[in-house]
């Protein structure tokens, strides 16, 4: 279980460095355990972006640590190329405006869905 704070934030930093798109969420992408996390997964699936899911329910250290790391009080949290993009509301807002797709393109991340 929970290691000290430095180790947790090191582990989070490594995860977001090693993966282009990371979603810190409650549950897994196959089985989200919270409505907000489910929405975040759906948005990424609509865009056809491969992403790494981190289930914060598996590790209390990460669950609290990610909030401090991002200075963001809630889960889910989306990182793209090491940059914190936002939570469920911001993802939803950006997706509707087409901005999330633009961001994915701008960052050069392969994805299967293209808006017309």
């Amino acid at each position, binding site marked *: 279980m929970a290691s000290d704070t430095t180790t947790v934030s090191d582990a989070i930093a490594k995860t977001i460095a090693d993966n282009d798109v990371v979603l810190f969420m409650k549950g897994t992408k196959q089985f989200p355990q919270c409505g907000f996390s489910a929405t975040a997964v759906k948005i990424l699936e609509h865009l056809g972006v491969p992403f790494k899911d981190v289930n914060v329910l598996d590790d209390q250290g990460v669950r609290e640590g990610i909030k401090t790391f991002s200075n963001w009080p809630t889960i889910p949290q989306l990182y793209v190329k090491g940059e*914190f993009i936002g*939570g469920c509301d911001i993802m939803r807002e950006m997706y509707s405006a087409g901005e999330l797709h633009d961001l994915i393109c701008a960052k050069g991340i392969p994805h299967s869905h293209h808006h017309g």
Partner: protein
Amino acid sequence: MPMAAADIEKMIKTRFPDAEIQLKDLAGDNDHWAAHVVSAAFKGKSRVQQHQMVYDALGGRMGDVLHALQLTTALPSE
């Protein structure tokens, strides 16, 4: 304990006196809120920063007693 609309509004107003706040009780249970906050203080800030400012105004309650607040922020239209 859920947070009452008046408390949420007051905390945001204290930090952003110019703010226009629209609160919607999403589930009718005084616990699931949608807030739209319009303030000139958001000028030049990214969306993430704007939300962080509002969360900060709520003094750590977001994600705690206030577990469901759908937030959108905007600048006043000219």
